[in-house]
Structure formats: C-alpha cells, structure tokens
C-alpha cells in the first residue's frame, strides 16, 4: 500500500487513512493529516529523512518512519 513516505518530490496524494498502530499516529492526526486531505511532498532533508509535506495550508516535517503511517489512496 502506498504511504506518504513513498511520495516523490512534488508529488501529491490523498490520504485514505492513518495506521493507528503507529505510536505517532495520534500526533499525526492532531497536526492535520486526516483522511480526505490532499498532501504534497515539498522537500526531503539529507539522507531523505525527514520529509516535509504540505497539508491544510501549512508545511509539516515528519520523519520518514512516521510518514509511513499515513496511508494514501
């Protein structure tokens, strides 16, 4: 299944769900990554981690590992 961690630079995706078993899932939801939202990969740091996504009109940086709990359509 495709997750936010698989997005390429500049690619967009629509969130289908959040993997609730991930310890960071609650915070991921709280900052605005909810199903139905369109996100875009804005930037990757060196070593391709963390990743910066545009979501709900702001940019949020998350570790790749945490981005993998954001499932995409």
């Amino acid at each position: 299944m495709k997750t936010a961690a698989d997005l390429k630079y500049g690619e967009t995706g629509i969130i289908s769900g959040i993997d609730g078993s991930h310890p960071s899932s609650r915070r991921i939801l709280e900052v605005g990554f909810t199903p139905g939202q369109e996100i875009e990969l804005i930037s990757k740091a060196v070593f391709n981690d963390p990743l910066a996504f545009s979501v709900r009109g702001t940019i949020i940086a998350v570790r790749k590992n945490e981005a993998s709990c954001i499932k995409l359509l």
Partner: protein
Amino acid sequence: MKIQTLEDNYLITLVGPPNSGKTTLFNYLSGKNYKTVNYPGATVEYSISKIQKKFNIEASILDSPGIISLASNSPDEQVSIDALYSHPTYGIPDLVIVTVDASQISRHLLLAKQLIQSKFKVIIALTMVDLLQRKGFNVSTSVLSEELNCDVISIDGRSGNGVDELIKVAEQNLQKNRITGAEKPIPFDSNVKLEYLLDLYKEIEQIECKAISKVVDNGKQIDINGANKRLVLLNNGLDRKINKLDQTSLKIDKIMLHKVWGIVLFFLAMAITFTSIFWLAQPVMNLVDKSFGYLSYEALNILGNNWYGSFIANGIISGVGSVMIFNPQIIILFLILGLLEDTGYLARGAMLIDKPLSKIGLNGRSFVPMLSGFACAIPAMLATRTIPNRRERLLTIFIIPLMSCSARLPVYALLLAFLFPGDKEWIAGITLAGIYLLSIISSVSVAGIVNKLKNKIITDEDQSSFILELPTYRIPKVSNVLNNSYHSTKAYFKKAGPIILVLSGVIWFLTYFPDYNPKINTVNLTREQAGELQSSTRLANSYASGLGKIIQPVMSPIGMDWRVGVALISSFAAREVFVSSLALIFKVAGDESTLQSSMLHEMHKATIGNTGQSLFTTATIAGLIIFFVFALQCMSSMAVSRKETGSWRLPLLQFFIFTSTAYLFTFIVVNGLRAMGIN
C-alpha cells in the same frame, strides 16, 4: 457596568497552538510589561501580567506554552496542560482566550473544540484574517460563534484592531460566569481514540465549510456551502485553494531545504551564529571584566584590606562579575536564536540535521542547544526545552558540558602559552582548534555511548518522534525579539545568579579563613609585596589548602601537587577562576601588563615539594588540558542541570562520569607522555 465591581484577581489564560499569534496578542495586552514565572518543579515557563490599564479591565493574563491538543505528547506538554486546568500558583482560569489562525482554521479549531468540550469558559480570538482574505476567502465570526457556542472575535495582534472588542466580550463573559457560577473543567483523557479525533475533524470541517465563504470580484460573496454539500467535494473544491501555500516561502525553501545547498547554508548559518556569539561579545566582555576588576579594586581601597573588605571585593563583586561577564554572550545568543526562530528558520535547521543526530539518540532539535554550549552551558541547557521528547532532551543536557564553553578559553590560553612560548604561537592556535574538535568528538561519542547503554543513565523512555510545523517565513519584528531576549536573559540571571553568588561566597570563605590575618615578615618588602605575601600565606593556611592537602594523594598520580588541587577546587565556581587562583597561589604580583609573563615565569620555577622535580612540564600541562576538556567543574551548570531535569540524578551522574573520565584520561596522558620520555 463599572469595572470596579469586578473582582480584581480575575485570571484570563491565553491558550493556542504554536504560530497562532498567541504571543503577539499577549504582548499587546500586557504592553510587554510581564514577568516570566516558572511552573514549580518543572521547566515550563509562563509569562504573567496585568492587562494594560487602557483596556479598563482588572484582570491578569497568563501566557501558556503553545499546545496543539489537550492530549499530551510528552511529560513537558502534560505539565502545560495540567497547569491550564489549575495553575499551582494562579489557580483555575476564570476565562480562556484561544487564539485561532483564520488561515489555518481547520487545524487550529481542534484545540478550541477540545477546550469547549472540557467545559472551559472559552472565547476565541481569530487571528490572521487578512491572510485568509488575501487567499480570496472570508470568514463569518457570527457563524463560527453560533456553531461553536462561544464568542468569536476577529483581532489583529500587531495593530491591535479588535482587541478592545475582545476585552469587552471577555468582561461580559466574566460577568456572566460570575452569576452562573464557576464550573470546574473536566479532565481530558490523554488516551483518546483515533476515531474521536477523526470525528472531531469532521465536525470542524463542517463548521469551516459553513463559516468560510469565497470572495468574488464584484464584492458579493458566494456561499459555497449550498453548492458543495458533501465534505469530500468541499475538500477538493474549496480546500485546494484555501490550502494554497505561501509562494514566497516555497521559493525560499527551494534553496533552504535543498538537499545540497540546504545543508551548506545550514552550516553557514550555524558558523555565523557561533562566531558572532564569540566575536561580538568579546569586546563587551572585556569591558565588563575590567569594570568589575576596577570596582573590586576600589572597594578594597575604600573598605581596606580586612575581612569584610575582601568579602565585598573578592567574594561579592568578583562573584557577581564572574556571572556578569557572560551576560553579553547570553544576550547575543538569545537575540540570534530569537531572530532565527522569528524568521521561521530554526524549524528548518532542526529538520535538516535531524537524521544524523537521531543516529546517536539525539533529535534535530538538539543541534541549537549543542551549538550554544560553545558559549555557555547554562543558556544551552535552557535551549533544550524545544525538544519535546524527554529522553532526547535529557541526553542533550547530558552532553552539553562537554562542548568547549568560553570559560575554558582563558585556561587553555594560559596553558598553551606555557607550552608554546613566543615564536611558536601558531602551534598554539592549531592546538586550540584541535581542543575544540576533541570536544565535539567527545560529546558526540558520549551521546552515542549513553544511547547504547539504553536505560543505564537516562531512564526516561519516550517514543522518538520528529513532527514539526515549518512556519511561513516572516520578517522578524525586531522589537519583539529584543523584548523576548531581554526577558529570557533576566529570567536566566534570576535563576542562576543566586547560586553563583552563594558559591562565590563559599569559595571566598574557604580561601580566606581560618588564618585570615597571617603574621608575616614585612622587612625589606614594599607595601604591595607585603600584601601579596600576606594573601598567599593566608591561602596556604586556608581551609581550601587544607582540602588541597587532603586531595594531594589524588593529585600525585597525575604528576601534580596540592597547589594545582586548590586551583582546581576553586575552578568549580567558574573554570576561569583556575587562572586567578594559580596567580594567587604562585604569588604573582598584580602588575596588569606583565601578569601572564610573570605567572609563566613562576610556573616554570615551581617544583613538587622538595624533590626538585618540575611541577609544570609538557606532560602535566597536556594532562591539565585534557582534564579541562572532560571535567564538569562548573557548579552553575550542575545547578541548571538540576533545575532543568527536575532531580539531582543527572547532574551528579554528569559530575562523576565526566570528572572521573577527565581524571583517568589525564592519568593516561601524563604517565603515557612520561613513559615516552616527554616530561
């Protein structure tokens, strides 16, 4: 209604997510005339102030740390949330003002909704409406107010538009609540189900959809609600435009977050920060040093060379001076950090360095505190508060004393001048660079080792996480940055000042008593020489020297004697005291211009006991340098470490581990060099 009838101890707490304009509003309400207070026993800082007279309301406003949800994510966040429910000093708030960024409304209403659900008395201050309008949308405060069942007032915290209205509504709410009686807020269950959050967001999206409308060119508004009944459609229709990012920020980030240039610029920014802390502060530091030297000299002249004169001059004035000398560095540090934070860069820097640091158990947010450690460990430890993960924060605090702080510089300068006299100064420079490199390598290695030891040293376990909003780039408001660094600096001195003062007094006592008026033979001596002889005799018979003699067996294996021991003991007040103590012990005359050369001369002459063996050799000097690289000889660092970590466990571990490592390495270096024939 007249304000006089209101109770004058109303407490209004300001709550809001980070970057929601909370602090701007607080500054406006308080007139920037606030005091910073600490939550007892914890690290979370609060600012409290009476609301300015011009608003005609008798109430105090409390600024709390930014949170995004009532469900805590870390122990520090839990403290902020607990304090919101009932602040240990100020109690339960009579009213909560929540700041909500109108252009981020769907994210920021989350906290507002949770507060309302928890039965706080809430009014919403809607900020950045102009930003939303620039995107082509308008927001109806009356619809929001109806949907949320609380008052919503649109404000501009910078210009103050709408703040009068906000205060008026706040007063009405306070009146109303007084009649209906205060209801205690319901504790929020931190273990919320994800479904709850999803439902909450759905509710918020419906509210957003009702309250926000599109502005069209002819000035009429199109109600998009009727057209798009379904949420998903709305997400694809309205949201795409409303969620449009700031284009300038995106362009800047193309460079700032570039894979190669991003990291180059990052190190450049850090290098500039570091050097300016150093070079900008130096002239001011010299000035402070000189002024306190002059004050101390004058005090001794006026009061006379007796015990109280010495106490005032050497104990109090020099003690305060040893704190004040770092003032310029601390102000510059806070200023630069404030500027970096206000522009929005700090968050990006943290993102860029997160991965390498996570390898050794640290976090992207550890880098700035580590860098600050080169100036002084105290503000560096304070700067770790931005690290939400407690384990990573404690690990960062743990290694900060290993960063080569500026107090070590005078010590290295003296020791290197001894090793490389005159024409070999450039070798001293290279060696100094090597010492800095060694401090970076050792701190990174220690972090790696402590991280590998898992729970042996740092027992706290937290899910390591890095989720950070990268705010829109902004031109910093200089007056706010200046004001904040003034308050941070003041808070720092209030906290560290008394400890340093008391400690200076103690060390003065140990070096002055019991033989405070020693009998000396003043025949053939000038008054100055007699004074010098008297103070060195006093020191030789002092409690400190007694202690020094007790630790003689410890000093012998590393090729040193009790005199170095005494200098080392007094260097626990501040590392640079090592230099002045050596000067006292080796009876160096107080002639400013030749102080160092006469000191070096005396050091060359010094022998251990009656053995005729030189005390200061290449081996022992190298050993001393190694000792200063590792040892934690800074009581103020330990005191701040205690305050920041909440117990003595970590500072004591730091002390024993770093100081015994220092001793071990010094032993190896001194005896190793001697075995190789280098004396």
